């Protein structure tokens, strides 16, 4: 069964092989990004439900319940909200 990515209440299909940022971009959702490497923190989003796996070390300061979309993937349904 295909997985879903819910952004600000709207559901989109989730490609588990891509980072969340790439998922957002492939759905033409305008989101902020700078370094795409986890160190600038520009792509920070709030995690409402679900879990992410970081494919590289998230160097920017992430508070609890925050995620960096540029360096994370998800294997399952996930809900996030943009800032």
């Amino acid at each position, binding site marked *: 069964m295909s997985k879903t990515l819910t952004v600000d209440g709207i559901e989109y299909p989730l490609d588990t092989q891509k980072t969340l940022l790439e998922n957002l971009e492939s759905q033409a959702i*305008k989101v*902020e*990004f*700078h*370094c*795409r*490497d986890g*160190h*600038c*923190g*520009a792509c*920070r989003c709030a995690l409402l439900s679900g879990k992410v796996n970081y494919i590289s*070390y998230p*160097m*920017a*300061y992430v*508070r609890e319940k925050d995620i960096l979309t540029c360096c994370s993937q998800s294997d399952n349904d996930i809900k996030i909200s943009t*800032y």
Partner: protein
Amino acid sequence: MAYTTFSKIANDAMKEPMFFGNPVNVARYDQQKFEVFEKLIEKQLSFFWRPEEIDVSRDRIDFMNLPDHEQHIFISNLKYQTLLDSIQGRSPNIALLPIVSLPELETWIETWSFSETIHSRSYTHILRNLFTDPSEVFEDIVTNEEIQKRASDIAGYYDALIHAVQFMQLHGLAKQESIDYINLDGLKEKLSLRSIKKKLYLCICSINALEAIRFYVSFACSFAFAERDLLEGNAKIIKLIARDEALHLNSTQQILNLWADGKDDPEMAEIALECFAEGREIFLQAAEQEKEWAEYLFKDGSMIGLNKEILCQYVEYIANQRMQAIGYEAPFEVKTNPIPWINHWLVSDNVQVAPQEAEISSYLVGQINSKVDSDDLSSFEL
């Protein structure tokens, strides 16, 4: 407490706060209280570059062909960047190294400041190429009123901290009945460790505003020229500088957030609350000054793709982003990036410096002859 280059106190660095604990002794990196600073060092070292690697020889022709008001924008912007990096190339070392207590943070500060000196060297590289004698440009930095206005604001927080720490390390804080502390405004001030920590907090806020807002406003101007295929060598250098700056602003965000979230010195957590309004004011003030700067840049006219209004919107946009990253509310209305193209210049992994790759776009354009005459088709038969 006097500064010592090698403290003989057998302390556990894992239990020290970031600042104002025991002086650092053994420079060891096998263990870190805050791993992120070690990661930052590694990343910064992997980013190492030299300005001479980048060919800026074409920029002179582009610059000569710019109209006067665009030359003013370009040169003023470069002067401002030179000022910012002149400050950053020395100040973190002088202000923060005497009070740091974690070996990984100490080395990060040195690595950080060193990379800023490379930025300073690259401005000379750029200017040397644009002018036969760049002295006039450099000399104007200390006399130009518009630049001076921001210089004193940025340097002020550093200087206040450095001055107070020097007094503390020379005289200690216990003997203030017999030795008065006269601050930089010439006034007598009662110093305590807490009041010096406050100066440190405000100083880090001011550094963060510098690296996270002020620099990005100047980057926008540099990249706006390159979006028109002008001064591309300069933009390539600025791209490398921007990649470094993302790391630097990350480190000051880390410090501020670690304090505010109570993960470091508990007294700093209290100070973060106490100075919340003052810290916010530093960011708002920086944003305001950058808008005034935009006014000065575009005083004689705007350029294609960028004008005063757009740059001011970007100031507000980036200020919102940066303030949210350290726990403040976004103070400005603007919700979307007025210059979304800038993000593609800020991606860290596609920095391209080889000249043959850079020139490809213009090379291809030259191959296409768009004029087709009917004579060209005269030999065709149907």
